Structure formats: C-alpha cells, structure tokens
C-alpha cells in the first residue's frame, strides 16, 4: 500500500466515524460530494465541525477558515490533496 492509499483509507475512516455513517469506509467513493443530499453523503454543519477537529487531531493539519474549508471539504480526494500539500503526518 502506498502512502497515498494509507492516507485515503484514514480519511475515509475518519469521515465515516465523524458523520456516524452506516457504511464501511471502503464503500465511500473518492469523488462523492460530501454535502450533496442526493448525489453525495448529505453531511451537515455539525459533521463539518467533527471532521475539521478530527483532521487536526489525526493529521496535525488545520483548516483555518471558511475559504479553505469550501475548497478542501468537497470530496475524499480534495481532503487527501490538502493533507498531502500540508505535509500531513500519516
């Protein structure tokens, strides 16, 4: 497993745990929109808070403001990209 795959798996586990989704992390698609109720996971504002706080705890990477949040918290892929660019610890 490459570092990218490890990171991706951890991100999926984190999302499933934070949003208390009733699916396996592996079932989560890399490009599923996090907030779209029809095409994606339909997460809400409390889920955002859980994910942001836990990304910080797990990977040591902050999502400091709304602008960054809007870019990063779109899909699993965008979160992984942000973590890689920020030198996240895995």
């Amino acid at each position, binding site marked *: 497993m490459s570092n990218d795959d490890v990171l991706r798996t951890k991100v999926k586990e984190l999302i499933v745990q934070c949003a208390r989704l009733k699916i396996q992390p592996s079932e989560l698609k890399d490009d599923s929109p996090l907030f779209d109720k029809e095409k994606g996971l339909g997460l809400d504002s*409390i889920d*955002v*808070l859980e994910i942001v*706080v836990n990304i910080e705890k797990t990977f040591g990477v902050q*999502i400091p403001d709304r602008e960054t949040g809007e870019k990063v*918290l779109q899909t699993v892929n965008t979160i992984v990209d942000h973590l890689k660019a920020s030198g996240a610890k895995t």
Partner: protein
Amino acid sequence: MNNGALWDHSRHWLNIRPIYAFGEWVLDSMPLFVGYGITWGVTEMAYHFSPDQRAGIEANVRQVLRHTQPALEEGERERQVKRLVYKIFHNRGVWFADLSVMAGRRQLSGLFNFEKSGDWRVLERQLSTGRGAIVASAHLGNWHGGGVAMARAGVPVRVVMYHNHAGDIMDRKVAQRANVRQTYIDSDPMAMMEIVRALRSGEVLAMLVDKPWDSRSVAVPFFGKPSLFPLGPVRVARLAGVPIFPAFCVWDRPRQYRAILCDPIEVRGSDPIEAEHEALTKLARVIETQVASNLPVWFNFTPAWSAS
C-alpha cells in the same frame, strides 16, 4: 431558505415583514407611549386570534405549574394558566416593542437599563485564556437584549441563528447597533468554519437552545417529562473544548432588564456521547429553574413536550 422546524414554529399572521417594518416605524417615530399603546392593542388582538399559539402556551404553562406546584387544586391551576397566558402574550408585545426600539435610532442609554446578575468574572476569566465560550439562552425574556447587554459590557458576541419569517431584518439592525456579529447556520454547512474560527479567536457564541431545530436532538427531563433539546450546542462545546454559560435576560419592570449569567457547564468525559447527554441534562435543568422563576416571560408558543 429554512424550511425546517423553526420555519413552522414561527408561522403566524403577525410574523411577516410588513408588520415588523410598520412596528419598527411606529416605535421609532412616534412618542414611546403611543408606540407601546399601539403594541398593546395589536397584542390584545393577537391573543384573541391566535388559538394555536394560545393552546401551545397553555399546555406549556400547565405542565410547569403541575411540576412546580403539584398540590395546586385543578380549578385554581386552570385560573392561573389563563391569567399567565394572557400576561405572556402582552409581555411578548413588550418584547416586540423593546426590540423595535433597540433596532431604531433612539439613544438607548438611559432608556434601557441592564443590571448584571451572576458571576460575570468567570466568563471574563474564560475569555482571558484566549478561547471563547458558548452562551446558551432560551426563549425567555429578551434574548436579543442579552446579546446587547453582553456587547455593552465589552464581550465580543456572535449570535448563531436560523433564518425566520420576518424577524431577521430587525435582528440584524439590533445586532449592528450593538456591535454583535451574526452567523446563520441553517443553509450553509461551511458556516461552522466561521464558528470554529470565532471560538478560537476568543468570541462568545450566543445560541438559543430550548427548541429542537433539526433532527439532532436528544430527550432530557424538563419539568418532569422528557423534552427534545438540540444537540448542536453541546457538541460544538465538546469539540471546541469551551464551556457553556447558560444566560438569560429577563425583566420585571419596563425596560429594566436583568442579565443573568449562570455557572458554566463543561462537556467533558471519557464517553463523548454520555458527556453530551449529561451536559444537555444540566442545561435543561438550569433553563427549567429560570423558566419557573420567570414564567410570565417564557415565550414558547409550541408545546415543549409534544415532539418527544
């Protein structure tokens, strides 16, 4: 636009933008006794032509009296319920008039008095750590006035709120005059980023926590029966690591407010869900005490126990 629980709860023939605009104009432009007089008349009409809201308050007051005065004979209790419901409607009129004045152009100093009650130094100490806090209030007294009182005391306040039918324009004016910030959370999940940033920069988040706005609610004891309370405030407190200060702004005499700050509630524990439930139970108990002491200004027009 919000189409959730709050949207339905606040549906009323008076809760429309033209009425709010007219009320603001009257209270801002005419002598105060005229404005408050017209408000009294409109409130009297509202009392007679709002059967659903009247029934909602009646049910709530009846349960409070059953719980706080169990020995009260039923006929006497019903007489007290009727009297209190009438008073609550008229106090709601006063609430509207006071808020309209706060939103307008009048000089507020000297017109309103905010007396502090409780140990405000605890909040000051919390803010001196550089982290913010959550102030949790209820539909009791003038919650907007509470925000104004805090801001006037130099506390950086941000109100976390939902859109509603008409009041949000007036809310905005009151907030702008008092230098209170606002964040709407009903339509934008990313608003939570603003909330995290605010808490980290030492702001106080003010929230109304006595109605289950969305599906994330938990039933906790409230006047002897389980009632749904929103989970959001305790979850935000737990995740951000900040305390919750229950706070209320009530009045006994016209425009003489008492801003009550209660002891903080921490949301801590090895089991996060249990910690949230415990904190919510404590919060409901504090609200219960304040509602019982200030029943004539408890403005909950929907039955507090029906949803649970």
